[in-house]
C-alpha cells in the first residue's frame, strides 16, 4: 500500500515549521496547502509576485488580476503583500524562502534534480524552478517513485537535463522518505506495506537505511 498523492502531500506538510515562508510548486506540491496543521502558521509565496497566498476564491469572486504561479485564480489574506517579479526572485534566489516543495522527473543520489525538460519532446520552459532550487534553503521533492514504465526516477545520476546540481534535501515518494545529505542518501521512512526489498528493487540510487528501519 504505497502512499497516495494526498498521503505524500500530507507527509510533506509535516516539514512545515511555524513562521516559515514557503513556495509550493505546481502539481502535487500544491496539495500540501490542504494539509497544513492548524497549529502551524506558514506564509505561502507565489513567484509571480505575492506573499501570503490565500485559498481559491468563492464562485463568482475570481479576480483576473490575482493569480498564482500556476495561473490559477486565488485570494489574498490579511498579511498579503504584492511585488514585482524581480523582488519576488530577490526573496527566492537570495535565500529568504525557507522551504520549497517541488515535483521531479528524476533525482540523483547526490541531490541533482531534473524536472523541466525531456530531449526530443516539446519543452515548455523551466519557469522559476531553477531559481527556487538555487536559492531556497530547503528543497523537498514529492514524486512517484517510478515512472509509468516502471523505470527508476531516483538514480545514481540523472539522465535528463538538470534543473540544479546538489539541490535536493529530501524526497517524499509513494514508497517512503529519503534524506539527501553531504555523504549520501538515507532512507528514513517506509510507506505502510512497503518493504526494504521493494524499495531496493525500485531504486537505482545508492542509499543507506536508517537504523530503526532495519529492525522492522
Amino acid at each position, binding site marked *: 500500500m504505497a502512499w497516495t498523492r494526498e498521503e505524500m502531500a500530507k507527509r510533506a506538510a509535516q516539514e512545515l515549521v511555524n513562521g516559515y515562508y514557503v513556495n509550493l510548486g505546481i502539481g502535487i506540491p500544491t496539495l500540501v496547502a490542504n494539509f497544513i496543521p492548524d497549529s502551524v502558521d506558514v506564509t505561502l509565496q507565489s*513567484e*509571480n509576485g505575492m506573499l501570503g497566498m490565500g485559498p*481559491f476564491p468563492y464562485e463568482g469572486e*475570481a479576480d483576473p488580476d490575482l493569480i498564482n504561479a500556476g495561473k490559477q485564480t486565488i485570494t489574498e489574506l490579511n498579511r498579503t503583500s504584492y511585488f514585482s517579479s*524581480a523582488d519576488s526572485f530577490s526573496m527566492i534566489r537570495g535565500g529568504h524562502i525557507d522551504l520549497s516543495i517541488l515535483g521531479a522527473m528524476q533525482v540523483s543520489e547526490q541531490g541533482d534534480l531534473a524536472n523541466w525538460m525531456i530531449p526530443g519532446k516539446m519543452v515548455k520552459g523551466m519557469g*522559476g524552478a531553477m531559481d527556487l532550487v538555487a536559492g531556497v534553503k530547503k528543497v523537498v521533492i514529492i514524486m512517484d517513485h517510478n515512472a509509468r514504465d516502471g523505470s527508476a526516477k531516483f538514480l545514481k545520476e540523472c539522465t535528463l537535463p538538470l534543473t540544479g546540481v546538489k539541490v535536493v534535501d529530501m524526497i517524499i515518494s509513494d514508497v517512503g522518505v529519503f534524506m539527501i545529505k553531504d555523504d549520501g542518501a538515507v532512507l528514513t521512512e517506509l510507506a505502510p506495506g512497503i518493504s526494504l526489498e521493494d524499495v531496493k528493487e525500485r531504486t537505482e540510487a545508492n542509499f543507506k537505511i536508517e537504523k530503526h528501519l532495519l529492525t522492522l
Partner: protein
Amino acid sequence: MSKIYKSAERALDGILFDGMTIMAGGFGLCGIPENLIAALRDSGKKDITAISNNAGVDDFGLGMLLQTRQIKKMISSYVGENKEFERQYLADELELEFNPQGTLAERIRAGGPGIPGFYTKTGVGTLVAEGKEHKEFDGETYILETGLKADVSLIKAWKADKEGNLIFKKTARNFNPMMASAGKVSIVEVEELVETGELDPDQIHTPGIFIQRIIVSKNLEKRIEQLTTRTKKEGI
C-alpha cells in the same frame, strides 16, 4: 509635452521597425498590455524579438503576434499554453531562448540601471550555464548573465497620472515595473488615468520618468487562464 495618446495605434506611431526588440509585461494572461499588443499586430511589423515571461495563448496576448508570424524570437521562461507556438518552434520557424524566471526578471531589471552583466547561481551545472562565463565568489560558482533592454516596452498598469506615474494592481504587477525601466521607449496602457497629484507620492510603483507614452485601455478582456474557485460550503 503631453505623454497622453488617444489610441494604442497612435502611441506606437513612429517607434516601430522590423527587427526590433520589444518587452511585454504580464505573467500568463495577467497584467498584459492587451491594446498595445493588438496595435503592434495591426502595425504588421515583423522579425520582432519579444521578451516576455510567457507567450500568451493561441488567440490572445503575444499568441496574436505568433499567429501573424511577426515574432522571430522569444525570450521567455515558460511557454506551455500555446499550440501555435509549439508548431512554429518544432518547425524551426521560431527562435526560442529559455531563461529561468528569476534570471529573466533580473536581466530586465538590470536594463533599467544600465547594468550590462551580473552573476547568479541560478542554472549553474545546467544547460542554461553552457557557453556562459563562470566565476567564483567566496568559493561558490556563479554564471554571468547579461542585462536586457528593449526598443519599446509595452506595459500594463492599473492607474497612471498625466506625468506617467504608475500604480499596478495585485499580481498584475509582475514584470511590468522592470520592463518600464528597461525600455528605450516605454508605453503604458492603464485602466484609469487620473490628474497629476491624485496619486500618493509614497505609493507610486513606477515614477513617470520611465514612461514616455500613455493610453487608456479600451475593451479590456482580462481573460482568466485557469478559473479555480471553491464553493461556499467547502469553507477554507
